[in-house]
């Protein structure tokens, strides 16, 4: 279970990334954030986001038409 959950269902680029960043900002290093999105573009975008920011993308999956990401703040 992630420390925090962020629901960005229905939101389009770039809001999922911007809201995730905002949430991560308020979290401690080592904590995990689960993001739930309906934007298919967020699959590539969260990988790129984590690659650039140094946060770890622990998992990336789908539940029906929801894309889920688990990010560990570093």
């Amino acid at each position, binding site marked *: 279970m992630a420390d925090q959950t962020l629901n960005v269902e229905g*939101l*389009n680029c*770039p809001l999922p990334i911007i809201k995730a*960043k905002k949430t991560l900002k308020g979290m401690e*290093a080592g904590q995990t954030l689960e993001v739930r999105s309906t934007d298919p573009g967020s699959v590539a975008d969260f990988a790129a*986001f984590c690659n650039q*920011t140094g946060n770890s993308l622990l998992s990336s999956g789908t539940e029906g038409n929801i894309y889920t990401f688990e990010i560990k703040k570093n």
Partner: protein
Amino acid sequence: MSDDNKSGGFENAKSMSIIVTKGSLDWAYPPFILGTTAAAMDLEVTMFFTFYGLPLLNKKLDLKMTTLGNPAMKMPMMGMHMAMPNIIAAMPGVDRGATTMMKNLFKKKGVASIEELREAAIESDVRMIACQMTLDLFEMDTKDMIDGIELGGAATYIDVATRSDINLFI
């Protein structure tokens, strides 16, 4: 620089600059989307607003768009995707209709408004520079603009650009 992004205290030292030259509702999107996203990815971002991009710094935004002269612009209408013939697009009221339709489309598809994106840019410390020459040219006033902007000219931009990893002209 190490490729090991997993180490603690990782900071992205990269930077990006964008020259913002267009102020229509549709063309206001690319610079603000890229600027806010780069800032979210820890890049240091500078946006230089010049010519028709400068009014995007006004406190009150009243962005409009036109389909005139844009054959690539097809909007979903009545179950189809329709482009507007220029002779119709030039008629009074058509731009207003297209603007309303586009704003509704953004809302329906969960796309942020320009106001929201600009707010996100301010929150993430994006540096915004207003072109002094454009201010003079169009007799605009920084009193009507949002707080926190800087004034500068071409040399100011070039100085930023020489130190940026990514430089975009939009």
